[in-house]
């Protein structure tokens, strides 16, 4: 409640009510706050996916080894653990930097700077998606896909190369357990990286739309580049999710 301040008998001044409406108590616009709340819900969606992956992994007696699953590089063949995904990660971090530079240029109403950095971000996003397309194709050639590895009678050679076979957990596991873990691993891998890739794709589309608006001078006439900031939030979130996907699938 606002407290009326009695200055003298005739005049009373009212202090503004912070939560009384008419202004944002958080000092942010509606659009930006809603972007944050959307990202919060999206964080829980991705969190649920990754925790489900973790639960299945804790439930399994044996699990594919990332250094064996992700050991290939285009044109070089296998034997390069984590090298390709490092490049993918680098591309995404780099695109996050160019995005924040676009937001920065927008804060100074620098139209040319916004255009330049948005273009680099779009290029980075497309490069990341191309890498992911290669990785998916490669995984598919290796035999991994949604719903693969369901037949317990298949020969060992079809799934053995995904595992670190020197581990005691591998030696002690029954073939059915090994196959089931490969099955779960690829289901989660394609679902989660696919959902992330879908976010990157929509992010690139948003960036292209914002770029067109910038070139057309829409934001210049509006007087501010907050739309660049809002799409930037989404883009950084995609990078943020990748940080966790990278740890869960490729490192742990």
């Amino acid at each position, binding site marked *: 409640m606002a407290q009326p301040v009695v200055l003298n008998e005739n005049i009373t001044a009212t202090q503004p009510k912070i939560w009384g409406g008419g202004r944002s*108590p958080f000092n942010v616009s509606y659009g930006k706050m809603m972007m944050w709340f959307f990202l919060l819900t999206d964080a829980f969606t991705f969190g649920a996916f990754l*925790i489900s992956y973790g639960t299945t992994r804790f439930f399994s007696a044996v699990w594919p080894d990332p250094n064996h699953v992700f050991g290939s590089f285009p044109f070089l063949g296998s034997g390069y653990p984590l090298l390709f995904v490092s490049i993918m990660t680098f591309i995404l971090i780099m695109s996050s930097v160019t995005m924040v530079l676009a937001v*920065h240029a927008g804060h100074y109403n*620098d139209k040319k700077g916004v255009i330049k950095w948005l273009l680099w971000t779009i290029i980075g996003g497309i490069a990341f998606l191309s890498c992911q397309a290669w990785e998916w194709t490669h995984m598919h050639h290796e035999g991994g896909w949604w719903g693969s590895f369901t037949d317990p009678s298949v020969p060992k050679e079809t799934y053995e190369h995904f595992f670190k076979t020197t581990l005691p957990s591998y030696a002690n596991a029954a073939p059915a357990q090994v196959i089931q873990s490969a099955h779960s691993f690829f289901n989660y891998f394609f679902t989660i990286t696919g959902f992330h890739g879908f976010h990157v794709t929509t992010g690139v589309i948003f960036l292209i739309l914002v770029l067109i608006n910038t070139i057309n001078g829409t934001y210049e006439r509006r007087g501010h580049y907050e739309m660049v900031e809002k799409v930037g939030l989404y883009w950084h979130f995609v990078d943020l999710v990748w940080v*966790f996907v990278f*740890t869960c699938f490729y490192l742990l």
Partner: protein
Amino acid sequence: MASNQHNHSIQDLYEGDQSKLYSGVLAHHDEGGLESPQSKKQVKRIWKVFWVLLIVTVVEVVCGMYGHNAGMPKWLLSTFFLVLTVLKAIYIVRVFMHLGDEVRNFIVTILIPLTLFIWFIIAFLADGSFWLHMNNNVGFHKP
């Protein structure tokens, strides 16, 4: 001509755009624009965060490749990765997403719901390992 014909400029169409009220919060109108010392300081900070993210990722990849072979215990390696991951997340959210520049109340509003993850992770992973225990000791899979 028909009276319902309008000739609004884009700006007029956005007259109700409430973001105008707050667009100046993070925007800067310093002397010199992008070349001002304030701006240069911010760009420097962005590149600093880039280097932190890059170096942390390189360290993670190297440990991921050689950690298991070097005989590091699995739990230590996992903890190390998780700490570095959270560190990267903090840098991204705070600097790249500018959450650190927002009003304190807003920061708290965004962060509090995320504490649910603490329960979420503990409960589900504990459940997973309980099931493994059951399967190994009393389940049908017992050899």
